[in-house]
């Protein structure tokens, strides 16, 4: 007998949805939409600059990434030849 779970869930979900929607409607969430468009821009944030990157580190990291890529390329070619 699985209906009770489903029915309870549907009723709870529906009620939650309707109550929230009703609240949104009454508290003016659908008004003043022009102002709402700007909300993400209100607070200013400090943009952080990009830091310097050591040359040695660049080489080591690039080397590591290239090894990874080479292994991938190798398996790819190998599989295509043997596949």
């Amino acid at each position: 007998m699985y209906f009770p779970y489903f029915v309870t869930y549907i009723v709870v979900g529906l009620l939650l949805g309707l109550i929230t929607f009703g609240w949104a409607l009454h508290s003016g969430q659908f008004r003043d939409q022009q102002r709402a468009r700007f909300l993400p821009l209100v607070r200013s944030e400090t943009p952080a600059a990009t830091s310097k990157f050591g040359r040695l580190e660049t080489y080591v990291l690039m080397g590591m990434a290239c090894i990874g890529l080479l292994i991938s390329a190798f398996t790819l070619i190998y599989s295509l030849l043997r596949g």
Partner: protein
Amino acid sequence: MMMATFMGLLGATELIAPDLSGNLSWIVFGRVRPIHVNLVLFGFVTPGLLGAAFYFLPRLLDTDLYSEGLGRVSVIVWNLILVCIVLSLAAGYSQGREYAEMIWPVDMLIVIVFTLIFFNFIMTVAQRREPLLYVSVWYACAAIVLTGLTYCLGNVIWRPDSGALVGIPDAILLWFYGHNIFGLLLTPLSLGVAYYVIPRVCRSPLYSHTLSLVGFWSLILVYTHIGTHHLLQVPVPTWLKVIATVDSVGMVIPVMVVLINLWYTAKGRLGEIHADIGGKFVFTGTILYFFVSIQGSMMALPQVQRITHFNNWVIAHSHVGVLGFAGMIALGGIYYILPRAVGKPLYSRYLADFQYWLVLIGVVGFTVVLTIAGLIQGNAWFNGETIYRVLPEIHMYYIVRASLGLIIFVAAVLGFYNIVRTIFGRPAETVVVEGSPTRELLAGSESGLAHQESGLAHQEVAS
């Protein structure tokens, strides 16, 4: 992401060489796969997106987070859960239902952590100084409430021993939950982040807030019903299949509403997006959202699914969705927020860019390879070919998939290094922000925007 992708890579390698793990029961494919899936979901994508939500919520509501302490407790519990997930699944303690494998104690921890987060979010909303709720706030709160509820139901937490009902009702319940992990957790959290990051990066207001609310409510209305599209080949009641199929196709509406809104916001400002690595990840995520959703709507058609079901086609779809859409946006959120949250510059933009390309190449490659493999499998099965003939045919694709997986794993390692170096790096050098946008802009007019843009144009980074 590193651990999770490594598990994926291990699983992919085992699909090529099934004897790889020998007698080591902890790492057989049947255990590695759920660890991979649950780690990407709960260890990488969801916490990445939630971190962003914790950042933008107080800013959009013009208040402080209700409780930093509660937030820290949530983080600790969350990480404890991850350890439990890996250990319990590796040790073979599993309830054996896809996406709901975790045993009851872990389930309970997950329910508790969602409750804590919900409480923190809703109290932050309650104490807000900004009366209007921006669409990202709607998405973030809805994701937490709906996931909390569906998690309890889908994991049948009132039956601690089995965590399941029996027979078809269990499958319906499971997939109702399983789909909602993507539809009501990852999707709304990702869209919330996109709706915050894209206007900020583009320095332009959202194209239409009304449209965004239409998108939100239509998603709530439609997405909640489509779990059964995972069961179209199963004897579940036909009316459920009809609802699932119709609503899956109907998903085109919320998806396109969101995308039109976001893309129009970014119209003419792709340069700004390109200049901000966070924005670049997020914007790419929105493009992949388009692909995964349109593909999804087609996969929900029974005729199409006769070929695409139960094979690698679906795995391709999963990776476009979870990695290409939600994962990309999670990474974008991390890169956008991290430097601002820790007050230090991103260690290396170059590395982040490199990671971006590796992930993109990886996910597109996955899509191509797995889709081809899926079509071979699907058609073979449809034509009654035996599995022993088909497996060798797709062997090569499995090898290519694993190679591409290696690229994604490398990307994860580079990202980890970049993030760690950022956190422990030197603080930002002096940054001067002139004419920063203020409340007066909220007059809401286009002239307000023009004023703000000129302010931002003066923003200079003095090093």
